């Protein structure tokens, strides 16, 4: 166990259930004590990847130091121990998502792989030429390109649900796209570039009424909202552990057991098989059928710790804290002359995309970086969405549970310097 993680499973901020104490939460994140260019780090790039609390770091180093071996293989003590920890992580994620059974949780090597798994395995197993997949203009490239690859292989058609100028998902327009040929609806829960929260429950209901299955890209929802895949009745739900303060190198795919059971394997290899001969191979049951090769073992354990961490704080407290940051940031940024916020959806998570007159997003990013403020500048892997607004890029500040109002002030002050240089 590392020295700074003497109590790796301690609840974050002991009074956190009573009142969300951001100062206590910040103490859990060692990297927030770093300085960049002699300034305190103001980390506002959480939508790209979130920082890790010592509870996660500690759980991972503890696993490596005390409980590591390959899983589901050895008859020896350490392998059994590691297998238990790995499967325990699956159970934690099951509870986090509100899934009915642990085997409905597949550990992939990333959220992108999780979407590719569904597009490939469900897509090639159940979709055929002329079938339609409905996406939205809000999608991340990771929820566009796998379906285009499927289109090349099978001849499916892709339709795209629109948004309005504020970034609101146009539900009525979406409904008009549904036909008896719609077999899959793959739509984000929260836009990574604009922060728009889509009416995902209504989307799922309408899609089901049309006879389609639904994959929800929950990468931005998982860090910001309480999730319940059964209440939503989602068929597939995908999220990225590294955005919920867990490690990279692992992704989560939730799928309803009957769908996963009916799907052909995605990748072949060890662990996913029951019996292999050169004539024929039979496959394991779920979830192992979709976990070919050595899985991200330590990463799963780290993810389990991240889920524990968030649960201890309570997603409701996180949501309230982040809603406050969003309101304050929107207000401060709106006051900056020449700054335009892109994406003013009625339902919005703590993501603020913006452009400034006379200053390209990359130049904004460079200038405020020197003030210690980290934001993303670019197309956010959502080029069709940027095009929708006639932009090639925006700057994006995205807030997490450890961010503060003072950091919003630091952002606003740094943006004033951008004005100084470029106005």
């Amino acid at each position, binding site marked *: 166990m590392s020295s700074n993680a003497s109590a790796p499973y301690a609840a974050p901020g002991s009074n956190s259930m009573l009142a969300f104490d951001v100062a206590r939460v910040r103490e859990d994140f060692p990297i927030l004590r770093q300085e960049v*260019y*002699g*300034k305190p780090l103001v980390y506002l790039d959480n939508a790209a990847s979130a920082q890790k609390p010592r509870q996660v770091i500690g759980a991972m180093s503890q696993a490596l130091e005390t409980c590591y071996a390959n899983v589901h293989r050895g008859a020896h003590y350490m392998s059994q121990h590691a297998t238990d920890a790995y499967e325990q992580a699956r159970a934690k994620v099951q509870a986090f998502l509100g899934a009915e059974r642990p085997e409905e949780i597949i550990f992939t090597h990333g959220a992108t792989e999780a979407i590719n798994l569904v597009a490939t395995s469900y897509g090639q197993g159940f979709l055929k030429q002329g079938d339609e997949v409905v996406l939205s203009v809000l999608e991340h490239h990771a929820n566009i390109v796998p379906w285009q690859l499927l289109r090349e292989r099978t001849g499916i058609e892709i339709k795209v649900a629109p948004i309005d100028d504020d970034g609101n998902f146009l539900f009525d327009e979406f409904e008009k796209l549904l036909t008896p040929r719609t077999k899959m609806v793959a739509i984000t829960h929260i836009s990574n570039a604009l922060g728009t929260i889509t009416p995902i429950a209504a989307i799922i209901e309408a899609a089901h009424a049309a006879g389609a299955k639904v994959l929800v890209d929950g990468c931005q929802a998982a860090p910001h909202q309480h999730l319940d895949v059964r209440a939503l009745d989602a068929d597939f739900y995908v999220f990225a552990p590294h955005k919920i303060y867990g490690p990279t190198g692992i992704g989560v795919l939730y799928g309803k057991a009957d769908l996963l059971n009916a799907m052909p394997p995605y990748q072949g290899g060890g662990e996913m098989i029951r019996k292999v001969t050169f004539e024929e191979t039979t496959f394991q049951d779920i979830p192992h059928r979709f976990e070919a090769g050595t899985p991200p073992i330590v990463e799963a354990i780290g993810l389990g710790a991240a889920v524990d961490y968030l649960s201890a704080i309570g997603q409701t407290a996180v949501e309230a804290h982040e809603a406050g940051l969003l309101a304050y940031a929107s207000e401060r940024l709106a006051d900056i002359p020449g700054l335009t916020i892109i994406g003013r959806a009625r339902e919005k998570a703590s993501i603020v995309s913006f452009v400034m007159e*006379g*200053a*390209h*997003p*990359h*130049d904004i990013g*460079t*200038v405020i970086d*020197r*003030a210690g403020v980290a934001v993303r*500048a*670019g*197309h956010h892997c959502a*080029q069709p969405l*940027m095009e929708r607004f006639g932009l*090639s*890029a925006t700057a994006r500040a995205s807030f997490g549970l450890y961010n503060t109002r003072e950091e919003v002030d630091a952002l606003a002050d740094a943006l004033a*310097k951008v004005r100084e*240089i*470029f106005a």
Partner: protein
Amino acid sequence: MLDELRELYQEVILDHGKNPRNFGRPDGTNRQAEGYNPLCGDRLTVYVTLADDGRIAEAAFEGKGCAISVASASLLTEVLKGRTVAEADALFDSFHRLCTDDAFDPDDVAALGEEAFERLQVFSGVKQFPVRVKCATLAWHTLHAALHGEGRTTTE
């Protein structure tokens, strides 16, 4: 903090970033290429008229980008006129080293009789901002593709 930023965003760069020279597509160009920076989505096209004597008679560009990439493209079009392809290549090489190589001594280039290179030295501040090197060199990579018939290029 402001010193390094001022070093990067010198007046000349801000000026060319805001008011790029030789912007647009002139008639009669015979070489062109499109450059793309997948990191930020910036895109620009460089147009060149290569005359019969093997020298660049005209250079222009159009596209969208940050202050660094637009200023770099703008200055590039100004310093190219009258040069051979080999001279343009040599200038690109020096420019690239200016943006990336700590050991690079601009005085070495003076041996080439490069008055033009002095103008490009406003980009020496880019060295302190490694992620912006691609912005500064995008137009040059694109020029290289245009002169050597590659048509399209990216900074990846």
